[in-house]
């Protein structure tokens, strides 16, 4: 009963309830502050790819071709080396950016000489879920090996689940030579 400092340590009396509430709230508040201070940069960094996404928000979601995007134009050969009406698979080296790496890498595309002077370049991926399309000459179809998607030579959906036509590369013809540009991905 002498001095209050020893009484607190030795008695079985419950601690001052006001003090206890204050301590627990303070500990909780400080912990929440620390958690937020850590979580904002950590979660922000880890999810940057999501909130900085280039793919626009759409009411209905859709697939995105996985191809590493090339920059600039690359020659895919003479126009006359392409038969009119027959899509042809080409694999050309393009300058690509892969995260922190910029290097030359092969990119595949279907080159389709639609008319004498008209050339289209198609991305090889099905617009349903991105499986690689093969062109079958007899049936004149691009066929998907996954869920039965089919595209015509013009890149339009013939049957199956694909929601939109095949994606195209920009192309140009200069001096009888065909050049493949960037993929036309709508922004």
């Amino acid at each position, binding site marked *: 009963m002498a001095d209050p400092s020893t009484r607190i340590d030795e008695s079985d009396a419950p601690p001052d309830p006001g003090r206890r509430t204050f301590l627990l709230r303070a500990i909780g508040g400080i912990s929440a502050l620390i958690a937020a201070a850590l979580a904002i940069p950590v979660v922000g960094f880890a999810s940057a*790819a999501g909130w900085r996404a280039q793919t626009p928000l759409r009411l*209905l*979601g*859709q*697939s995105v071709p996985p191809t590493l995007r090339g920059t600039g134009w690359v020659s895919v050969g003479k126009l006359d080396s392409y038969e009119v009406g027959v899509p042809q698979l080409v694999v050309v080296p393009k300058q690509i950016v*892969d995260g922190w790496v910029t290097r030359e890498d092969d990119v595949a595309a279907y080159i389709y000489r639609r008319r004498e002077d008209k050339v289209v370049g198609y991305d090889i991926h099905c617009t349903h879920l991105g499986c690689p399309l093969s062109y079958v000459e007899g049936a004149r*179809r691009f066929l998907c090996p996954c869920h039965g998607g089919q595209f015509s030579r013009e890149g339009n959906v013939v049957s199956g*689940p694909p929601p939109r036509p095949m994606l195209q590369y920009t192309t140009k013809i200069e001096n009888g030579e065909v050049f493949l540009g960037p993929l036309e991905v709508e922004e």
Partner: protein
Amino acid sequence: MRRLWGWFEERLGIGPALSGFVDRKIPRDIGWFHALGSATLFLIIVQVVTGIALTLSYVPSPDHAYESVLYIDATPFGGFVRGVHHWGASVLVIVIVLHTLRVFVWASYKYPRELNWVIGAVLMVVVLAFAFTGYLLPWDQKAYWATVVGTNVAGQVPIIGGPLLELLRGGAQLGAVTLVRFYGAHVWVLPAALGILILTHIYLVIHQGIAAPPRLKPLTEPVPGEPRKATYEREYAAEKRAGKPFAEALYIDALVALATLVLVSVLAIVLGAPLDAPADPNSTGFVPRPEWYFLSLFQLLWYFLGPLEPLLITVFFLVAGGIFVLVPFLDRNPERHPRRRPIALGIGAVCIVAIVGLTWLGATGAASGLPTVAARPGLSAQELAGLELFNTVGCTACHTIDGAGGDAGPNLSDVGTTHSADELHEHILTPDTPNMPAFDQLTDQQVEDLVTFLQAMQ
């Protein structure tokens, strides 16, 4: 030895806790089926141990991932460790499903264990996320294309699909950033989640005790008007009084763990760890297929058609996942014995049949694209030549014969009875519908073979 233990025990003081742990009473009828839970835990431990070993030689970069896996396989025990990790994942998926089924059939998720079902359901999703992030890591063909499809499925989510897809891939494209993200998720993020969830799951099992297998006739007399809590506690106390020591169950767990280890080791030695050709983003002939445990989902994507497909898929997954997680709150029937839960068990059985059936269809179905029609017995040489053409020039893309082929055009299984040779001739060379291309590039002989073959289809 005894003195050494005594020295430690004097300082650690865990002896009484250990004795209490192995001696405490559990319901008597707990037996082999309960070992599925401990087998799940055991397999997770095996995955952690072998996974840690694999990180010592694995490089998560497209330049080196595949080669580092080859290097692991060429190192003594390396192929075995990777094999155990690979097959352990498959066996883990099977065992965790069986464990869930055991809990479902015996209604162990009912009061007061609802929370542990929810945690277990989330754990199952985490295990599948482990599987999904894990099999990209070898950076082989199967890995690359399964991840293309898997991330595109995430892209189907309405409105946030694009950002979600890019969050998974680390950008719009699939490359170096994707691989290292999946690696980081596989070895750090998911294990952290797994650890917290498993500790909570096991804490609840120890704290609440193992649920007794259901009885048709309870051990104690029910008291009318008694609250649920009192009924449960009286009955569980009676189960424990008639029970056996926990060491009995641990003994079965140990035997099952040993058998599980033998199983995955045999699989690893006999079948080895598979590795496809290196990932090639330009391979147009490749047929992407996921691991077997995702085949049912892959097959499911056949059945959602039309412009609203992405919405339907998302709603389906949300509803199915929500129902799975919330089973204890949807199933209000207080009965626990299977015979008194016909509706719940019926719904469960339908789900199992659907999942197994979809997996079977996915595993046995031919790749779409150009399926191959098998020869019917007794075809002549010319008819066989026609069949060869039918399979190779692209007819099967749109036409089905005997169950193989596409459905964009008519089924031709009995076309020989409905069309004359002249009509077939005309259809092949000058089709009257714009959907069918003219096969005028074929030689006269080839068209003749094809027509002869089709005539035999009756």
